[in-house]
């Protein structure tokens, strides 16, 4: 059997007496689109922080393509192909959209200890960056300062930055947060196109989007995965209905 693209083994995290991640184990086969849902405060974002290396885990391990990456920092994990986006838009507002993405290309290829030559004019960096921008539908906005983009466009830009890093596993932390219906539609179509091209772990509140996109869904409640399986099965799971969808019994 092939190694899972991403595997979590018994991850734990507590802030004082508050357990935010409680014995989480999960394996994503190569190319799977997996979604994690859960009520507010379930610990979804903390889990993404632990997987990406932004926050250290108390115990447990993260495996990428069969290799233990638990001891690696966030940038080191990015170089191994584990790339994330943020729930709260995180871009470089003073840089152009193209430069935001070109930096991701620069991080992936070649040295950044170069002190001469205008980085902004390097076709080696700009061409792949432009490609990523066009892929997310921002080709025409390449020259615009990122801070001036609309909220939806910033979300698209974040995905373009992640794509330029050429991820094997992409962690998307609520990419639809704060977007209007039209902006959501663009982003959902974009995620649809990414399906199967890489392994994706999506955290999302928008149930409609989750059930349309994901091949498997896991439900996180109080830091614990209470159900995991195909969308239809998870939706009908009585535990899930009680704990998450707020229904009393059948």
């Amino acid at each position, binding site marked *: 059997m092939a190694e899972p693209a991403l595997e979590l083994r018994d991850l734990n995290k507590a802030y004082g007496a508050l357990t935010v991640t409680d014995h989480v184990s999960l394996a994503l086969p190569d190319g799977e689109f997996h979604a994690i849902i859960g009520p507010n405060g379930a610990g979804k974002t903390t889990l993404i922080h632990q997987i990406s290396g932004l926050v250290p885990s108390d115990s447990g391990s993260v495996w990428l393509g069969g290799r233990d990456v638990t001891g690696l920092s966030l*940038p080191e994990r990015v170089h191994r192909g584990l790339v994330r986006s943020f729930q709260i838009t995180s871009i470089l507002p003073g840089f152009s959209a193209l430069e935001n993405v070109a930096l991701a290309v620069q991080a992936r290829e070649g040295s950044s200890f170069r002190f001469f030559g205008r980085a902004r004019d390097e076709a080696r960096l700009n061409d792949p960056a432009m490609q990523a921008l066009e892929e997310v539908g921002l080709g025409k906005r390449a020259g615009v300062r990122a801070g001036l983009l609309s909220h939806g466009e910033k979300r698209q830009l974040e995905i373009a930055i992640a794509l330029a890093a050429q991820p094997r596993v992409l962690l998307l932390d609520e990419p639809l947060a704060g977007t209007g219906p039209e902006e959501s539609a663009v982003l959902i179509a974009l995620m649809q196109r990414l399906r199967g091209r890489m392994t994706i772990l999506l955290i999302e509140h928008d149930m409609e989007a989750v059930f349309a996109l994901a091949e498997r869904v896991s439900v996180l409640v109080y830091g614990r995965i209470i159900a995991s399986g195909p969308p239809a099965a998870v939706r009908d799971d009585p535990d899930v209905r009680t704990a998450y969808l707020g229904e009393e019994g059948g």
Partner: protein
Amino acid sequence: MTMPPESGPGFLKREAVPVVVFALLALLPFVAVLGAESYLLSLVTRVMIFAIAALSLDLILGYGALVSFGHAAFLGLGGYAVGILSAHGQTDALVQLPVALAVSALFALVTGALSLRTKGVYFIMITLAFGQMAFFLAVSLAAYGGDDGMTLSGRSRLFGLDLFKNDRAFYYAVLLALLGAYGLCRSIVVSRFGRVIRGARENPQRMAAIGFPLFRYQLVGYVIAGTLCGLAGFLLANQAEFVSPAYMTWQRSGELIVMVVLGGLGTLHGAIIGAAAFLLLEEWLSGFTEHWKMIFGPFLVLVVLFARGGLMGAIRRLGGGGHG
């Protein structure tokens, strides 16, 4: 390949400020009235030396948002390299300068490696602490004048010749150093490396998530800035033919920050203009009263409050470029 042309009328318009500044500096020795020449020359030489120091600080403060409050230490390190070597009979710039730069770089490497593990206010405090350490080390050097500092036997020699003895020759050597430092910083800022440093100022978490381990980039930036400031220290010792712990007081570090902010953070030529404005105002105002800081303080407050982007920001607005 398809690089935008760097020449033509657009170039002059875009680069008007540095072109004018350097042209004025290059012509000054010719237009200076004979009688006051040596006074003016030495004043502007000092301005240029501090401009190099401010420039080096702008590289990490303006572009990297690293508020180093101990930058004057490098002025002292560069200066004492000259002083101590010449006290032992080694007066050749070809030895003194590399030693000054190497000592500064090493100090930056060690203190930077520790300081850059902290952020924000803690970074300011720890750089201040290292600056004070250097200051008290100099005070304790009884063999080299201790508190009082030491007078040099003369300026550095080059190939055994007393080239810098002539104030004009020294002036042009300093101008050349300033031009070189400015060119180097300009190049660094737009390079791949500079883009990483600027990105870290905008959003360090994003830069880490893009895949940049920022610490090592910031450390290299810190070493470059410290080394450049060491060059300024080497020149300052030569200009004054004197070194003392006063080179590296924390007040001096503060003045360097003021120069950069006054000129306009993150503009490079702003640092030159800021250094000039600071030293010339100091010179002019102290002619009226010894309490010149009573006037200078409020002036500074006004600039910070009303001229966003410092003097460079004001110049840009006057030039009609509306964006800030």
